[in-house]
C-alpha cells in the first residue's frame, strides 16, 4: 500500500505519482485531498486508489479500469465520461455525478446533486440517499438506482436509461413514466445493491420489488410526422 499526500503538490504531480504507483502494482492512499479539483483524472491503469478526504470537481473523470474510493464528499462531475471502473464516494456527490459515463459503476453513499447521471450512455449509478433536480436527464443507456427520493424533473428526456427509485419522486420529467418492474429488474436491483453497498445499508433499503421503475415513454424520440418527406419540404 503506497501513500502520498496532496499537500504542497500540484494536481499534475499528484496524478502523475498515482499513475506511477498504480503501474508498480501498488494500491494507493491519497491523503489531504482538500476537495481539490481534477484528482484521479484519466487513470487508465487498473488498481485501487483511496482519497482520504473530500475531492473537488471531475474526480475520477475519464477513467478506464481503476477503482476509486472517496472517504469524504465529491464536487461536480464525479467519474464523468468513465469508460470502465468503479467509483465509490462515502459522502455526498455534487451536481452531474456520473455525467456521460459509458461503463463502470458509480456508487454515492450519501446524496447526489442535480443532474445525476446526465447524458449517461451505459454503466451503473447507485445513490444510497436522494438525488437532485433533473437527474437522469437525457440518459441514453445504462441503469440508475436511487434508493432515496428523487427531486423534480426526474428522468427528463431520456432514451434508454432505466431508473429505479426507492423513495418518493417529486415529479417526473418530460417523457418519463413509471413502468412495471419485471422479475429480472427485481433480481438486478437486489444483486446490484448487495454487491455495491454494505450489508448494514442494504438492510435499511426497500425491497427490490418496492422500487419504482422509471423509463422513457419514447414520445420525444421522433418529431411528430417524421417521414423524411416532411423534411424534404423544410426548405
Amino acid at each position, binding site marked *: 500500500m503506497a501513500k502520498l499526500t496532496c499537500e504542497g503538490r500540484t494536481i499534475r504531480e499528484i496524478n502523475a505519482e498515482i499513475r506511477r504507483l498504480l503501474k508498480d502494482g501498488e494500491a494507493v492512499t491519497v491523503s489531504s485531498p482538500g476537495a481539490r479539483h481534477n484528482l484521479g483524472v484519466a487513470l487508465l491503469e487498473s488498481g485501487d486508489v483511496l482519497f482520504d478526504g473530500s475531492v473537488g470537481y471531475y474526480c475520477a473523470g475519464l477513467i478506464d479500469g481503476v477503482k476509486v474510493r472517496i472517504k469524504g464528499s465529491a464536487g461536480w462531475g464525479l467519474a464523468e465520461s468513465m469508460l470502465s471502473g468503479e467509483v465509490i464516494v462515502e459522502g455526498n456527490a455534487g*451536481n452531474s455525478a456520473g455525467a456521460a459515463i459509458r461503463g463502470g459503476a458509480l456508487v454515492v453513499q450519501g446524496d447526489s*446533486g442535480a443532474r445525476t447521471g446526465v447524458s449517461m450512455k451505459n454503466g451503473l449509478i447507485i445513490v444510497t440517499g436522494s438525488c437532485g433536480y433533473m437527474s437522469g436527464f437525457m440518459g441514453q443507456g445504462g441503469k440508475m438506482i436511487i434508493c432515496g427520493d428523487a427531486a423534480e424533473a426526474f428522468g427528463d428526456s431520456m432514451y434508454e436509461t432505466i431508473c429505479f427509485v426507492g423513495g418518493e419522486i417529486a415529479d417526473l420529467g418530460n417523457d418519463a413514466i413509471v413502468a412495471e418492474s419485471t422479475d429480472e429488474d427485481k433480481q438486478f436491483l437486489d444483486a446490484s445493491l448487495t454487491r455495491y453497498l454494505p450489508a448494514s445499508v442494504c438492510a435499511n433499503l426497500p425491497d427490490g420489488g418496492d422500487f419504482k421503475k422509471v423509463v422513457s415513454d419514447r414520445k420525444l424520440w421522433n418529431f411528430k410526422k417524421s417521414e423524411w418527406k416532411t423534411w424534404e419540404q423544410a426548405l
Partner: protein
Amino acid sequence: MCGIAGYYDKSSGSTGLIGCTVLDMLRALGCRGPDSAGVALYHAPADGDFVLQIKLGEAGHSQNPTENVIAKVSALSKPKDVSTTGGYLRLTIDGTLDPGRVAAAVESTGSEVEVVSMGRRLEIVKQVGSPDRLEETFRISEFKGSHSIGHTRMSTESKVDLSHSQPFWAHGCPDVAIVHNGHITNYHKLRRQYEQHGTRFYTENDSEIIGVYVAQGLSRGLSLEEVLHAALADWDGSFSCLVSTADAMGFVKDSFAHKPLLFGETDGFAVVATEEVALRAVFGSELKVREAGAREVKVWRN
C-alpha cells in the same frame, strides 16, 4: 462567474477574526475569479453611528475629493474617524441621520464618487486584484466581527473596476450586502423598471440588480427569507447568491441549480462557499457540508 463565501458566527459576541476566515476562503476560490476581490464585514455596533466606505473616484477629476466630501457631509453633521486607504475614504457619522440624505450628500461631490457601503455594522472593501492584494491594502485578516460575505470576480459582460466588483451594497439600505455567482438574464428588463421609478444604478453589472431588489423588498417590510423566496420567481438566469444584513445571512439558489453552492454548520457557526475546497482549507475535514439544492433558500440569524 465567480467565487462567493460567507461566514456567520452564531454566538452573540462579535469578536471573532472573521476577516481571516473569509479571506482564506476567497484565496482558495481565487482561480474561479481572477479579476477582483471584495468582502463585506460586520462588526459590533459602533455607538450606533453609521460607517461609510466611499470610493473617491479617479484622481484628477475633482481636486481634494476628500475635503469636498467632508465639507458636504459636515452640513448635516460633523463626520468622525476620517481615514483614507487604497482609494477609499472611510468615515463615521451620526446614526440618527437619514441614510439617503447622507449618501446623496456624499455622491453630490462628483460623478465618480460612490458610497460603496453604509451601515452601523457593515463595511465593504473591494478592489481590482487578488484576495492577497485586498489583504495587503486593507488588512482584512485583522478584522473582528460577527459575520462576513466575500467575493472573487470573473467578469463576464461588464467592466473590471472597483465599482463593478462585489460585494454590492444594497444602496440605500444600511447594513445590507450581496454577492452573486451566475448571471441574471432579465437584468436589463428589471433595471429599466427600477429606473422608471427613479433608482440610480452605478454599474453595468447584472449582479447590482440583486442589491436593488433586496433593498426594495426589505424596505417594504419583507423578511430576508421572503425576499429570497420571491427572488426565485422574479430573477431569471443562474444564481447562487448570498445576502447579509445587520443580523442575518442567507442564500438562494436558482431553479436549475446552475451555479454551485455548498454549506455547513455547527452549533457555533454557519459557513457557505462556492466550492468545498474553500471550506476544507479553513475548516478541515471534519465539518459536514452539503450542496444546496435547486430553489433552496436558507437564512441564519441570531
